[in-house]
């Protein structure tokens, strides 16, 4: 995700032109350890209270697998939707001047700032069978609240700012001359977008997608209100972890958490590689 940073290798005894390597590196390692690595290591350690058979049993139980499937599957789908819709929102916000543009631009950040429980309750009352949107949808035979569809919508809600805010600065920086160049070479608007603009945005789009996805996988607050939380149907993995904790089955909870952690890590790693590959094709100056 780092674009064109200058890399300094330090500590080899040679004098470095950029001072502070030892200090910043030490702080970085300490900080990351305290904040991220030690808690995660604790998580792994806790699972070792289980034998491998027990561990396998927990994570392959029908309820766990379904919860993981719901969390990852819907998060992925929601991130895809955010990728497409977020790109369109960015395009409109960056490229056109319309009344209320700044207000819309500010609205994008609301899912960042709103307490997730508030968002969940708002969405639930909106999409409940007697809600403003729920009622007309119910007439069409579509039930949103208390179904996986509700989870999906909550995940879209919390993910959209990630796509918009990562792609926006890149689109703003995109030189209008390259579009003019494409036009004067005979490309129509569609060809210009497809062949010139979109490829330039790919690294940013991938970052936005990865962030939206990661956020949706871990989302708890807004989802549990709208989900209905039926085991195997609309129960997300983070909720199952909380349930296990409330039953004092700590090892079970950590086992599920470890699976989520590893899966999320692998997916983000893949997206990062993709991003790196896309970046390599667009070398920085």
């Amino acid at each position, binding site marked *: 995700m780092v674009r064109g940073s200058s890399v300094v290798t330090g500590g080899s005894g040679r004098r470095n032109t950029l001072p502070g390597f030892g200090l910043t590196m030490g702080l970085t390692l300490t900080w990351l350890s305290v904040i991220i690595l030690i808690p995660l290591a604790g998580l792994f350690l806790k699972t070792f209270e289980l034998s491998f058979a027990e561990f396998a049993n927990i994570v392959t139980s029908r309820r766990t697998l379904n919860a993981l499937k719901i969390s990852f599957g819907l998060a992925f789908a929601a991130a895809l939707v955010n990728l497409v819709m977020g790109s369109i929102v960015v395009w409109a916000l960056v490229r056109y001047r319309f009344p209320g543009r700044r207000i819309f631009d500010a609205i994008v950040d609301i899912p960042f700032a709103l307490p997730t429980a508030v968002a969940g309750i708002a969405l639930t009352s909106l999409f409940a069978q007697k809600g403003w949107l729920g009622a007309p949808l119910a007439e069409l035979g579509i039930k949103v609240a208390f179904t996986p569809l509700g989870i999906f919508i909550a995940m879209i809600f919390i993910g959209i700012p990630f796509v918009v805010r990562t792609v926006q600065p890149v689109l703003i920086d995109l*030189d209008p*001359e*390259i579009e*003019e*160049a*494409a*036009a*004067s*070479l*005979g*490309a*129509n608007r569609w*060809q210009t977008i497809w*062949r*010139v603009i979109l*490829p*330039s945005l*790919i690294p940013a789009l991938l970052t936005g997608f990865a962030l939206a996805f990661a956020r949706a996988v871990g989302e708890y607050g807004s989802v549990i209100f709208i989900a209905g939380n039926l085991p195997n149907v609309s129960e997300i993995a983070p909720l199952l972890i909380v349930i296990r904790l409330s039953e004092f089955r700590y090892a079970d909870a950590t086992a599920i958490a470890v699976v989520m952690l590893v899966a999320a890590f692998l997916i983000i790693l893949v997206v990062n590689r993709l991003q790196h590959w896309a970046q390599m*094709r*667009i*070398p*920085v*100056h």
Partner: protein
Amino acid sequence: MTIELTNITKRFGAFAALDGVDLRIADGELLALLGPSGSGKTTLLRIIAGLDWPDGGDVSFDGENALARGAGERQVGFVFQHYALFRHMTVFENVAFGLRVKPRAIRKDEAGIRARVKELLDLVQLDWLADRYPTQLSGGQRQRIALARALATEPRILLLDEPFGALDAKVRKELRRWLRSLHEEINVTSVFVTHDQEDALEVANRVVVMDKGKIEQIGTPGEVYDYPATAFVHGFIGESVVLPVNVTEGRVWIGNQPLNIAAPNVGGPSKLYVRRHDMQVGSESIGLRGAVRHVRSFGAIQRADIAVCAGGNETVIEIDTPRDHALRTGETVELHPRRYRIFAD
């Protein structure tokens, strides 16, 4: 192809970028639009390309109304000042872009595209860079790739916006020579914009000097240099010595000193324009005198700052003289303009 611009106007808010411009560009010409920034030259180029639209006036290519067509339909090759290469594409794909986006019915097949791109990369002598990305190239190389990309679709006109603007002096010189020989080779009607008089005078067959949205003069490089039509052109091209004078009844006065020179068709407060190399220190007197303030010598010449009293004010001019006539600081010398122009204020 001939390009005809008639009475083009373009405003940006209250600012008149182009103010009634008429220009005819002949087939196969290599024309320079020369002017300071804000003179409207780039706007004019973009209007020809179809990247901007005039508020009034006509643009026609070979007698056809070009304003009825968009940028993509005008068969114009445009080279941007900062090249505008597609960073995510290789050099090869950049050059192939114009060929690939053609409608299927008239698009070349892959082999045809490859052959054409190869041909163009050979033309700009950069075939060995085909697989590189634009950011891996030097400025001069990017410029030439941008040119190859613009030429790929066989445009009828080639337009270049400040083609040498972003290059260092040495590369600039090479590229000037190269562009001129390229034009001789492909002979497509070409227009380039520059603020640098050397670019214009060295490369173009014809130079259009612009200022404040208007054309000041059109002529060959020799004509605009030797016979500037307006005070602006005289001041903008070449180095000029400018002295304030007053013309009454055909006599030229500098302060209260009459000068023994003719002033055809001018009256009232005016400016005397002399090319720096046309101003001599001599024995021949026309009544123009100055005090030597400072002398420095190098090589075969000495350069002197000479203060001329003009009215109540003093104007200091800098002139070069041969060393055989040594100037001393403080002495008063006669100045003699070999050639001069007088323009009314």
